[in-house]
């Protein structure tokens, strides 16, 4: 992730119904319909925007509850984060259902350290009397957390600044690693050297070991494919709408 990139890449991940597409539309100005149901974003949409002289390509991943390969959608999202190695992965969380939403954020943190957590629907949470200690959350997760309300276009400047700082390398993250029980940790330890041997340092070894222990066959299949080839296969709905910069 060097500075001679003329374009940075951002992946947008999150549960369904978290306002992910609203944020996507807001950032890119892409004329795209936002849906309200599970898996509405069937293939992923792509858009572009500029901020502080940098141009960004942002990919809206399918809305999923998890990345543990329960469905084709989850595989697409997982493979994108692992193989396309976006410069920033934005995880959008629903402030009114943080507990369930955090599951996905934790999974992403195991895969990459270039993560910004975006707590959306802050306005609704406030209405429902839910108070979220953003600072504490950020401390716990070890990555920047930005409260926003995509609907009301609140917090977007702060989000963009955080993205800008992250791609410039001004933010050091220390993503939370979940500690599993002893038995699992021991198994991970045993497996990690072999993972490194077979797959190399290019991918997060601990995470892959964990997925293998979980019996995730589809991941190995994806790994076995030439990653570049995979990237070509991903259906793109490219729409260059870079005219609207925020």
């Amino acid at each position, binding site marked *: 992730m060097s500075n001679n990139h003329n374009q940075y890449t951002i992946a947008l991940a999150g549960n369904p119904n978290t306002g992910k597409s609203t944020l996507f539309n807001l950032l890119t100005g892409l004329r795209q319909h936002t849906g309200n149901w599970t898996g509405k974003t069937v293939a992923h949409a792509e858009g572009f925007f500029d901020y502080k002289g940098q141009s960004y390509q942002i990919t809206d991943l399918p809305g999923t*509850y*998890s990345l*543990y390969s*329960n469905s084709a959608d989850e595989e697409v999202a997982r493979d994108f984060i692992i193989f396309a190695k976006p410069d920033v992965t934005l995880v959008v969380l629903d402030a*009114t*259902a943080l*507990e*369930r939403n955090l*599951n996905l954020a934790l999974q992403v943190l195991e895969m990459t350290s270039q993560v910004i957590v975006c707590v959306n629907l802050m306005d609704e949470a406030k209405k429902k009397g839910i108070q979220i200690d953003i600072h504490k959350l950020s401390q716990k997760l070890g990555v920047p957390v930005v409260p926003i309300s995509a609907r009301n276009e609140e917090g977007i400047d702060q989000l963009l600044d955080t993205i800008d700082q992250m791609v410039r390398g001004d933010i050091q993250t220390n993503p939370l690693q979940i500690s599993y029980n002893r038995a699992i940790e021991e198994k991970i330890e045993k497996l990690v050297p072999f993972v490194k041997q077979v797959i190399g340092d290019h991918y997060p070894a601990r995470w892959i070991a964990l997925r293998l222990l979980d019996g995730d066959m589809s991941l190995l299949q994806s790994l076995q494919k030439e990653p570049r080839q995979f990237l070509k296969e991903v259906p793109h709905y490219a729409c260059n709408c870079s005219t609207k910069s925020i």
Partner: protein
Amino acid sequence: MTQAKLERLSDAKPGERFRIIKIAIEGTMKRRLLDLGFVPGNEVLVLQKSPLGDPTAYRVSHTTIALRNEESSNIYGERMRNEQQS
């Protein structure tokens, strides 16, 4: 608490709360249920049945999820009958 006292989520009535103890479903569906917050130890509020009687909507982890009888009858736990929560 004895095993014999386990009840099915599908038997809980709208308005009742239910504490999950065991999920007797295997594979992907179990995964999905766990992802959605149907986790042993967690509490579920039965909201209402669909007009035709099935599926039923539950509040779990501050979200509303509908399950069919096939699934909810394999989720075991204890009913908590302090109905008037409103």
